[in-house]
């Protein structure tokens, strides 16, 4: 047995760990390359093979700071993402709680409805929203983006919440209701405080969705309300290689908050993904 264990330990060191590291590099190296370009001068950024030793410069980041368009798009991203997270979480929590406690729908029916709504291509709602917003003067406003994103995001948040609330015992709110709370009071005072992980998971997924979404703002928003992905995509369309460091700096600025969120909140992300699979 000891011999076997020793052999397993050797396989771990020689085969498994290097393989795991290799794919970690495949996943992360492009982003490290991006950071490297963002702190190079244009001349260094072109160099092939890539120069490993170079004088780092933060000129590109300074340039971004003084770029009014970047500031505007960043602010739009913050406002739109914040509003979508807040509204999605509130409405999703109410709906998910109702579904979890009423129990009239089987979880398979719910999954099917949610997946059908989730799988709708954006193009299936874009034309109506485009026409309506042009006619009503709502085109290129943050309110429009927020409304559409909340709607597109809703099925998914309800579904995640339903799973979380089902795990919370009914006795909890029943006790509160015997003490004289109505259903809503019991939900807010007793159920929500113990649903922290569910709230965190839904908030994170809503954040990822709203912050990363590209097609909705590219059609429904103009210079007033566009969010950061649109800016990065505009950059990508430019073939002027001299601007690579600037584009890279903008891309890093977009990606950094997400990487921080992922490293600090990994367990909520994983838990949210898994609760969906477990409950069937």
């Amino acid at each position, binding site marked *: 047995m000891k011999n076997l264990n020793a052999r397993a330990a050797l396989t*771990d060191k020689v085969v*498994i760990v290097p*393989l*795991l*590291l290799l*794919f970690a590099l495949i*996943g992360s190296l*492009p*982003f490290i*390359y*991006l950071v490297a*370009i963002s702190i190079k001068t244009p001349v260094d950024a072109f160099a*092939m093979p*890539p120069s490993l030793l170079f004088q780092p410069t933060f000129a590109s980041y300074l340039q971004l700071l003084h770029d009014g368009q970047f500031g505007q798009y960043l602010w739009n991203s913050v406002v739109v993402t914040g509003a979508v997270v807040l509204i999605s979480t*509130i*409405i*999703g929590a*109410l*709906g998910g*709680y*109702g579904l979890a*406690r*009423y129990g009239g729908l089987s979880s*398979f029916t719910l*999954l099917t409805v949610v*997946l059908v*709504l*989730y*799988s*709708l*291509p*954006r*193009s299936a709602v*874009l*034309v*109506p929203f485009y026409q309506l917003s042009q006619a009503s003067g709502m085109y290129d406003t943050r309110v429009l983006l927020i409304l559409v994103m*909340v709607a*597109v995001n*809703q099925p998914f948040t309800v579904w995640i919440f339903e799973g979380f609330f089902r795990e919370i015992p009914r006795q909890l709110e029943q006790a509160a209701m015997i003490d004289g709370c109505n*259903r809503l009071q019991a939900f807010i005072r007793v159920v929500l405080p113990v649903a922290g992980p569910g709230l965190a998971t839904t908030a994170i997924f809503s954040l*990822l969705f709203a*912050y*990363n979404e*590209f097609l909705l703002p590219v*059609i429904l928003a103009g210079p007033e309300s566009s969010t950061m*992905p649109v800016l*990065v995509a505009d950059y990508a*369309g430019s073939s002027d290689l001299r601007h*690579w460091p600037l584009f890279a700096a903008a*891309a890093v600025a977009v990606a950094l908050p*997400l*990487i921080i969120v*992922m490293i600090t909140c*990994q367990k909520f*992300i*994983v838990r949210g993904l*898994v609760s969906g*699979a*477990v409950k*069937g």
Partner: protein
Amino acid sequence: MTRKEFAAFIAPCVVLTATLLVAPVIYTVYLSFHHLSFGGHPQFVGWTNYQVLLGDDQVRGALIFTLAFVLLSLPVHTILGLALALMLERVGDRLRGLLISAYAMPFIVTPVVGTLVFSWLFKDFWGIVPYLLDKVNVHILWFAQPWAAQTMVILWGIWWTFGFNVMVLYAGLQTLPDDHVRAAVVDGASYWQRLRYIILPHLMPFVLLISLFNVIDGFRVFDSIWVMTKGGPGTATESIGYLTYRVSFVLRQLGKGSALAVLSIVGTFLLISPLLVARFRGQERD
């Protein structure tokens, strides 16, 4: 919970979904039977849009490429995700957390950003990939040759997705009851036997779930095509999602674009229905 309470709790999300999601889709279906360009009035044309689309070579090309994108990458990133998730069980907590973060980066970080870097890696003359391939005397113009551009987009799809699969499958492994595995070990089952008879069956619902999301997200791929190739060279890497966008908002044929959107709803549904059926059967068994 009474029916009345239930109605009150789900009212906000039902109203929101009905007015802002379902109603627009119904309007899109309505438009798909009309001829409409920007600023005009819809004119009823019956099934014409659908007839035109179903006979159109560009639509067929986009459909074939989209299906190739979904179906060629699906087995690769599923098996890769599974293998990495199983191997992750053998390393310490700290290292594992870092590794999962690294795998998930392409999936978590804004797709537009990920694709931007990915396409830089392949850029003619300036990219690292052509540079390294030159060393072994392979010369590929990734953005000019149709098969090369298609391969690049499919590679991007695998790179984008595998980390998501690792996360879900690893989390799935954590839900495996310890006593099942221990009983099998006591009975003298080898690792491969445990994998075959205990671990893989337990992971099946998770594999189905990631496949559902992978197929749905793959079938409507848009961001990365826009950033990497704009559907080019020619229309070699045009996906259904990209074509729909181009017809509606570049060519400004809203009726035809709507019909294409309706067809992609049908297409997605056809693709995911076998997975849904499999999942339903799995539940019946439990």
